[in-house]
């Protein structure tokens, strides 16, 4: 029972943990990684059918459970803990949030139903913010004869390979729009990720027909980016908790110089440091989820609180995994030991959707440390002024 979670959220956590311990133990995770599938189809189906996890954020009238980012955060912690390879973050968190944010049920209702029951998979191609550099997307939208078309390249789209639908944030002549395209109509080239439990592709679009969802979507994209950052924080928090358990277990049983290594102060302090990171990451990830769940929060406030979490987790998360390897010594440096899988996850999550420096810069803007942007900057919804 964790007292910063509701009884229901505690129950959900126990249920998901039991499910994943049974269905996605380390051996199964390794099988999925080696097969290169990105997910175990049976687990995915059961997550949707038995537990309804893919529909957590989808409103009840569209077949989902209509719960909040707080409950979703608990599930993401467990997914991070189990290192479950799946397009869950892309489809059930990021894509669903984009569609809900765009608030256009006419255009997106069917897709949301499909995402909720796990029968469809979607992902989001951002105009910027995943990689945090210039020109990560060159996609632009045009409307030649009544129908929208997208052309350009996106350097990286998470789970594009598994997706049926790619949602694309792209500039139009008037602001940013959100568009849905059939993934099969795009050219997807798989990338090799440091995190072996995640997949991504670069995506090229040439005059791909697109359905527009909702209106001006600059703020929607900013909020979805905040959601994505918070989701990675929750994943990382769960991973860090497992890393802590691993380090402590090892320190208790491994003997050196005639006693358990956990009796040595240096090992105690390494474990205490990992504990500090795991506890703090969990606390800030849940804090970020609460801020996303707050209906009254402004975009600026959501950005501040989620960036707070991402700045902390990006600055310290990988440290927990690195110290865990240090506690393990040589054995932690082997392929067979899971320590590196967690290191890869935590290091990768550190850099995706903005590193600590980028999120601190965003916080500085929201906190007013920066000179206010000139009016013409605000109109340009892409790039770093978009989030002022």
């Amino acid at each position: 029972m964790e007292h910063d979670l509701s009884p229901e959220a505690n129950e959900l956590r126990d249920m998901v943990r039991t499910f994943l311990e049974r269905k996605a133990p380390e051996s199964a995770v390794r099988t999925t990684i080696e097969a290169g599938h990105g997910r175990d189809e049976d687990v995915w189906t059961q997550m949707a059918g038995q537990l309804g996890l893919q529909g957590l954020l989808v409103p009840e009238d569209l077949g989902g459970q209509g719960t909040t980012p707080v409950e979703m955060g608990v599930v993401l912690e467990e997914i991070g803990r189990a290192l479950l390879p799946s397009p869950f973050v892309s489809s059930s968190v990021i894509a669903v949030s984009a569609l809900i944010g765009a608030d256009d049920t006419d255009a997106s209702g069917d897709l949301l139903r499909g995402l909720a029951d796990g029968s469809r998979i979607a992902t989001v191609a951002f105009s910027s913010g995943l990689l945090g550099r210039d020109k990560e997307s060159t996609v632009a939208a045009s409307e030649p004869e009544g129908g929208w078309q997208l052309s350009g390249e996106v350097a990286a789209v998470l789970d594009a390979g598994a997706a049926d639908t790619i949602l694309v944030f792209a500039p139009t002549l008037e602001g940013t729009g959100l568009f849905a395209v059939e993934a099969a109509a795009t050219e997807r080239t798989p990338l090799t990720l440091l995190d072996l439990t995640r997949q991504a592709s670069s995506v090229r679009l040439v005059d791909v027909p697109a359905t527009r969802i909702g209106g001006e979507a600059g703020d929607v994209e900013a909020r979805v980016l905040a959601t994505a950052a918070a989701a990675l924080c929750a994943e990382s928090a769960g991973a860090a908790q497992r890393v802590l358990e691993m380090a402590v277990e090892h320190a208790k049983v491994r003997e050196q110089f005639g006693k358990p290594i956990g009796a040595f102060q240096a090992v105690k302090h390494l474990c205490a440091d990992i504990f500090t990171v795991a506890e703090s990451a969990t606390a800030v990830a849940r804090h970020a989820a609460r801020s996303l769940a707050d209906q009254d929060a402004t975009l600026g406030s959501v950005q501040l609180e989620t960036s707070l979490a991402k700045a902390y987790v990006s600055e310290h998360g990988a440290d927990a995994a690195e110290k865990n390897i240090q506690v393990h010594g040589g054995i932690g440096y082997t392929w067979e030991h899971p320590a590196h899988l967690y290191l890869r996850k935590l290091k990768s999550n550190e850099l995706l959707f903005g590193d600590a420096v980028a999120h601190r810069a965003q916080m500085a803007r929201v906190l007013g440390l920066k000179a206010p942007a000139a009016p013409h900057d605000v109109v340009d919804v892409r790039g770093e002024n978009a989030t002022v």
Partner: protein
Amino acid sequence: MNVTDELREFLDKHLPPFREVWGERPSYEGRLVWQGILQRGRWVAPQWSKENGGRGLDVVEALACSEVLADYQAPATAGIFGVANVGPTIAQWGTDEQKQSLIPILEGTELWCQGFSEPSTGSDLAGLRTRAVLDGDEFVINGQKIWTSDAHRAHQIQLLVRTDPEAPKHKGISALLVPLETPGIEIRPIQQINGDAEFCEVFFTDVRVPRSALLGPMNQGWMVTMTTLGHERSGVVTHASAVVREIESMVDSFSFAKAGHELSPHLQDELIERYVEGRVVGILGERSLESIKATGQPGSEQSIIKLEWSLFTQRLSSTRLALGGADAVIGADEQSNMSYLQARSATIAGGTTEVMKNILAQRVLGLPA
């Protein structure tokens, strides 16, 4: 009326006239006066029971009151060790006679200090050597305490002494309540690295006190003390939210609107990193509060708040200097210098970082001693 509204009304009425006399940053004497005023409304320790001078509030209400006082930037009270530590222990373990001290503690007319540390103990608190020997109906105390905060101002001391030298070290200790004017006590302030003298050495030479000075059972002083330290628990939550206010106000002072310029990218990043750390301490405090609300006890996050706070405080003091630049060390910014020097004690006083990490690893994580 809601209790916090009542407190706000009280402060609206009493704070302005107090400030007119004592200013924004009152001296110790001013803080004593303020404590007296505050206690007229029973606001010094509203979580204490009504008969002891409090209002019987629960921990959440009490913390809400702390927040209000912080919002108003009300002066700190003066007799903090009596209110935060000694009082609650007396309330739990004291005789009726000893409990006579509780109201004066709140009013600030009886100031207390705590004699725990000794020159030879340091991190090993239970290794204390100051002895008290029963001679008829009197304890005879000989020994020395050190790092005794506020001893030079206090009237009384809550003292840990060894009463059974044969017993294992945690088991032969008793707690005594001793008036500091008792013959044989000598108090020497210790000048700190920033020039202030907040701590003292206290010497005991054949100091005689009646048997009734004993607080709690004989030879159970360690347990009695741990109770006292336990009372600091919800204090950590208050402390964590004070950290948040501090860092928020510091960041605010560097906002473009107030400062009129942007910081260099490096300093901006460093300042926001401190902001993140400070806020994390605050969020851990909130998490702790949820545990306290639900169970009356903080959760395991409690053990890292002090650790993280102490490191944060030291880093923040360095950031303050960095923000001031070389000007800071060359006279322009004495406040930053003082806070840098003061911050050194954060990882030492009340348990060194090293010892706290050991304790955390052993008690929370279950690693072998």
